[in-house]
């Protein structure tokens, strides 16, 4: 299982008239799929 890393981001999800800020995200390193 690849290691998870918490990174700071500037983001938002807008659904209709609702807006939620996204300030961090857990990302992980992977390898591009074979044949992609």
């Amino acid at each position, binding site marked *: *299982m690849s290691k998870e890393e918490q990174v700071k*981001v500037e983001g938002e999800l807008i*659904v209709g008239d609702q807006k*939620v800020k996204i300030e961090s*995200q857990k990302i*992980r*390193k992977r*390898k*591009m*799929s074979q044949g992609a």
Partner: protein
Amino acid sequence: MAFVVETKGIGRRDYSENIEVATEPFIRSRQLRFFYSIRYTALAALTYPNVYEAPLAFLVNGQLQDAAPSTPYLFSFLTVAANRNALVALQFNRYESYQDYLNGNIAEVLGCSYGYEKTDLRFTKPIPTREGSVYSVYIAEFSNLAFNLELAIHGLIGALETLE
């Protein structure tokens, strides 16, 4: 519900009267737009085929969650952009569960695209989410330098409108 045009007089029926009422569409469901955007700064350098994977979030009752909700999100456009002319990659993935996401067991690769500085995935027929599935993107810039990326995703939420 059928609209009945009242018959008046004799001869051929005249449907021109109230025709705007007879053809008014009856909207059975309502769609919302969604717009997801994330700016990543100073991500550590990558070399192909290494990428970063980020899970996508869904909004349910004001809270973000990883699993797709019962009301489908219809993905129509995903784009990733760097701030220099380097090769970038974008891949859109579906997992059956969060555990599969952790283990990297992709159920479906829904799209994959490469480009210089910017690349995108456009679906003329939007991709609906399946309830409980986890969706993610692979994103990368292959410049061997720390990099910034902007990810944006557009789509609709809800069933397609049924007109009657």
